[in-house]
């Protein structure tokens, strides 16, 4: 596909356009939200508790009188950060292991895949729990790193499979005959042919990291200081926000996460159509 063709189908695809718009909105909200809000500190007690959405508190307040909108925009920031860092890390690790295992083959491949399969069976959240439980001080940065280091196995397996099929092509043979170094062949010949796939993997890892962080925050293993969307929901559950009918506290943070992740899926479906002519709507 030429670049011009790509841009044409990319900009014509409704799903992709939709996803880009939603993410542009979310990123702007995360960037300027804290300045829009009249309250600077998401943890400050700024008003009476139990307030439904109003002019003073756009999304109401929680039991302690903290402003939900302020918490939400700060939580959005940390979610996007976890997605970016954790997702990137998981993608990079998965790519490297997949490429090397697939290209080198032999017992090297066997050992790497054995390790990958082992990690794949262990539920990521369980692994995160056991690591995070013993970290006395946790920040969003550490959380993203742990997520990145535990979420790569399926990527590695998929990339390995693709590498296996690509490495038998003529152009790779040709590069090998000219005595190019393996790393150069991987990044110069094999990876460019997988860029579309790599991009989609990144999108899935981005969403996966956000979901993993939310789960971790919710069971009480999130950042020890600061706020996140998962922590908001944990507090809402612990303080019986649902029973008290405080939907603005319990439901909104999760709705934002659902919007973020669902948009990523839509984006992926759209990209699939861009890259794969068979799937385009006829």
């Amino acid at each position, binding site marked *: 596909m030429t670049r011009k063709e790509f841009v044409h189908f990319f900009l014509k695809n409704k799903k992709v356009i939709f996803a880009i718009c939603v993410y542009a909105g979310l990123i702007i909200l995360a960037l300027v939200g804290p300045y829009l809000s009249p309250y600077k500190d998401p943890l400050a007690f700024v008003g009476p508790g139990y307030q439904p959405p109003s002019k003073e508190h756009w999304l109401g307040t929680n039991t302690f009188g903290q402003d939900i909108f302020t918490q939400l925009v700060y939580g959005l920031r940390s979610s996007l950060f976890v997605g970016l860092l954790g997702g990137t890390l998981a993608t990079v690790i998965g790519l490297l292991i997949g490429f090397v295992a697939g290209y080198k083959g032999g017992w090297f491949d066997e050992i790497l895949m*054995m390790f990958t*399969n*082992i990690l*794949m*069976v*262990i*539920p*990521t*959240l*369980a*692994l995160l*729990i*056991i*690591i995070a*439980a*013993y*970290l*006395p*001080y946790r920040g969003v940065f550490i959380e993203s790193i742990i997520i990145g280091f535990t979420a790569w196995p*399926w990527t590695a397996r998929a990339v390995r499979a693709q590498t296996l099929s690509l490495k038998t092509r003529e152009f790779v043979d040709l590069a090998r005959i000219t005595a190019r170094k393996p790393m150069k062949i991987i990044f110069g010949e094999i990876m460019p042919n997988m860029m579309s796939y790599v991009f989609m993997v990144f999108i899935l890892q981005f*969403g996966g990291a956000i*979901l993993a962080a*939310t*789960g971790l925050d*919710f*069971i*009480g*293993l999130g950042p020890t200081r600061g706020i996140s969307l998962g922590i908001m*929901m944990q507090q*809402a*559950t612990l303080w019986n926000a*649902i*029973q008290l*009918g405080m*939907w603005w506290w*319990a*439901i909104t*943070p*999760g*709705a934002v*996460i*659902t919007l*973020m*992740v*669902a948009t*990523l*899926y*839509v984006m992926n*479906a759209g990209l699939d159509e861009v890259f794969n002519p*068979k*799937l385009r709507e006829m």
Partner: protein
Amino acid sequence: MRKYLTKKILIYILTFFFAVTIDWAIPRFMPGNPINFLISRFAGLPESVKVLQSYFTQAFGLDKPLWEQYINFWKALFRGDLGISIYMYPQPVAKVIARALPYSLIVLLPAVLLSFAIGNRFGAFVARKKRLDNFALPVFYTLTASPYFWFGILLAWIFGVVIPLFPLAGAYSFGITPSFSWDFILDFLHHWVLPFGSLFLVMLGGWAIGMRNMIIYELEANYSRYLEALGSSQRLIRRYAYRNAILPQVTGLAIQLGTVVAGALTTEIVFSYPGIGYILMQGILNQDYFLIQGCFLFIILGVLLANFLVDIFYVIIDPRIRKSYSGEV
């Protein structure tokens, strides 16, 4: 077939070994020395520091060389000794977990099986039906994108607060004692609907989308085109497509198990449902490390077992695996 299963079992044994090693190593080698951190929380009470110090030294066997600690850890494990819970002192962790396990299973198993069966049918039905697809797809995407526990919160709010149909917490009412009577069973089911429903619906979305995409892919395949050229009915073609498409879905089931279990854990917390997830949360809130470690091991064991069952199921439904390993193809 035997070769295939042997290979899988080997992986599972290695995984278990790996998991136990992590379980053993993390409290000992984590930066910041978690055991010291635990003890330092009681720094204001010098008396209890001493007691705790000796307790932890004994419990973790810290006065022995590392390799001996490791072997002892395995020995204790095979005796079923997972330590004493701090949160529910002085009950052994194994007992606390054994009591919680049935509650987790009774929500998780039906949700996984039913959502897999119904979701796949639904996805196959929707594929390549333009109008239905346009309506169903956004719904499925929203379902599968929502965190399990958030969807639980949403259902709890809608069906517990706005329209108060179902109870919001616990596995049965306070006034009732567990027994095999109709009253109890009805009450139990009443409490069971929402946790089950939220798990079921979120999973349903994922399976339906996966199946829809697979069916579209299969309908593009040459054999479908050929059948079409021969003039076979759409129903027949779709049936063939379904049988091919279900295989990657079963593999997907094995891959998804971890996420599903994690989702079930968090959903239990929302509904204060007394399963493993709820216990785990209590363990975390109360810094009960033995309980956390025990839950970790149990979750891994469960996932391994489930993976193994999926593998066997895969052999049953895919004749190629059966045949290729016995040399018939």
